[in-house]
């Protein structure tokens, strides 16, 4: 990346951050507060009332980490979808690499994830979660979710230029995704093996389970547990790769016409 592009990227991320909580009294605190409040609600309803996650050690933290990763995916793809159209003023009047706009939204989502993980870490210490030697491996599932979200952002942002319905459709998909991903319930709650496999084909589900395994408890059911030794345990990674390159290629083919189509 050239020096100019780096400067532009950092300026775009900076602007994004400054504008995000524009005019709100609590400002940046919201990027921590909103996942925490959501966590509080889900915790009371699902853990205290419905008693999900009985038998899973440190279930509240387990739940929080899932929410944080899911929120990262949700925020990045939602903001990615509208990134190009939202920055139409730049695209119509200046020549900057188009991908940079999507990339800058992905970076601000990443920074937010970092902040949220600090909260998770604080809870882990407070909750006396034992240190696992697999903790450094946490980086891999997070990277996987990032690559998937980036690929989806590229695809969706380019589609959104032509079809404004895309954002509504994607919102519905995300809603469904929240329930078919084992975020609020432990995967062990599903007893049907085929169903478990279907759930774990979803890369976000697989990544969340792997992250929990690495950071919180080895009692987590991961993709390799579900799929056994079969080659199809690589399906989620295949989906991530396909989403990334597919998104990138579609974005590249469309980006030439963004200026006239917006």
């Amino acid at each position, binding site marked *: 990346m050239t*020096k*100019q592009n*780096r*400067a*532009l990227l*950092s*300026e*775009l991320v*900076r*602007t994004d951050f*400054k*504008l995000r909580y*524009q*005019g709100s009294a609590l400002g940046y605190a919201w990027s921590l507060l909103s996942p925490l409040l959501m966590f509080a609600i889900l915790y009371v309803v699902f853990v205290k009332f419905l008693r999900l996650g009985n038998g899973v050690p440190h279930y509240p933290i387990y739940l929080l980490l899932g929410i944080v990763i899911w929120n990262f995916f949700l925020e990045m793809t939602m903001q990615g979808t509208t990134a190009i159209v939202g920055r139409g*003023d*730049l*695209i*119509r*009047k*200046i*020549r*900057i690499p188009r991908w940079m706009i999507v990339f800058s939204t992905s970076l601000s989502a990443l920074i937010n994830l970092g902040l949220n993980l600090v909260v998770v870490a604080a809870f882990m210490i407070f909750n006396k979660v034992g240190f696992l030697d697999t903790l450094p491996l946490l980086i891999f599932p997070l990277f996987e979710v990032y690559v998937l979200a980036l690929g989806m952002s590229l695809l969706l942002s380019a589609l959104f230029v*032509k*079809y*404004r*319905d*895309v954002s509504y459709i994607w919102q519905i998909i995300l809603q469904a995704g929240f329930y078919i991903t084992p975020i609020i319930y432990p995967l062990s709650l599903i007893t049907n093996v085929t169903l478990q496999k279907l759930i774990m084909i979803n890369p976000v589900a697989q990544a969340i389970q792997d992250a929990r395994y690495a950071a919180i408890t080895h009692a987590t059911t991961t993709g390799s547990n579900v799929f056994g030794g079969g080659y199809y345990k690589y399906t989620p990674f295949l989906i991530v790769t396909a989403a990334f390159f597919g998104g990138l290629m579609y974005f590249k083919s469309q980006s*030439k*016409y963004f*200026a*006239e189509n917006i």
Partner: protein
Amino acid sequence: MSDDIAIKIEGISKTFKLPHEKAGSIKNTLIGFARRKRGYELQEVLKDVTFDIKKGEFFGIVGRNGSGKSTLLKLISGIYTPSNGSITVNGKLTPFIELGVGFNHELTGRENVYLNGALLGFSRSEMELLYDDIVAFAELERFMDQKLKNYSSGMQVRLAFSIAIRVKTDILILDEVLAVGDESFQRKCLDVFEEYKRNKKTIVLVTHDMATVRRFCTKAVLIHDGKLISEGKTEEVTEGYTKLNQESIDNQVPQIQDHEPSDLVIALKNTENKNTKRFEYGEDLRVELSWPKTKKVNAAGVTINTSMGECAYATNTFIDKQNVTTNKIICSFKLNLGAGKYYIMAGTFLDRPESQVDFVTHGPSFFINQESRIKGEGITRLDHEWRQS
């Protein structure tokens, strides 16, 4: 490509798809697909345009509204992609389609300076060095920590402009940036243009202001209906443009009501006493004023205005010490005016200029056809000669 060429444009065409209604929904696309109907119309905005811009040239692209000149500019800038043909750019190119691109009203002046600077290719450390100069030039020291939404539009333009002129680049693309701002700001712009010209930078200017083109451009092209219709020296191209405008004004003339109805009737005639609207430079124009016999009139006045409403010449019977006794008076003018459209303003009076009887503020208009053999600028063309001693 030879080294002295900055931009090479070869056989550029651009076709836009214009959707019939906002077809930006999947439902419409599906319906359109099922009916085998295209949801858009194709509009060819540029047709096979070819020309070169050499290094160090101040190059004008002129054309009327909707001629395709702005599209051409965006193609050169790399914002649009041509449907056909190719554009090769030799060197770093910075487009100014608009001043203050990316300005955000919720950010402070300071934050906007850094953001806009980054969009123009400056790093943060470079901007830190330039920052004080930019603020001083814009004369906005006291306002930099206020949000941009609290700036007046003039202040915003000043800030944007003072960032823009810091850009170090080989080729600058300017799109009628001059159209905004007050007179002192426009003068600042012109000074900067002069500076660029002295430094032998390559500038591409898109405008329909012929005075600017004539003042700065060394070469120009004229675009009309998406085609390049003339290319070369600035004078030839601007003359072509004036002619083009003339034709279109002529076509419009019958549709507009020429002047308001009044008891004072104004007729324009040539030396052969024929009603006409077209005159050559130096020809005689006879302005006939007549009014009903019942009206008492002692004096009359005639003004020739340019189409912009500027007074080219005004006279009356008071100044010329004429006494009006009939109900019809003729004033003959020798038209040593530049090419263009003019209109008559006339009035009748009693004994004093304050005692108006009838007054026509926008009377019949006429045209001076061709540019006279006398070259130059301004409303009139004066016979002149240069002598050296």
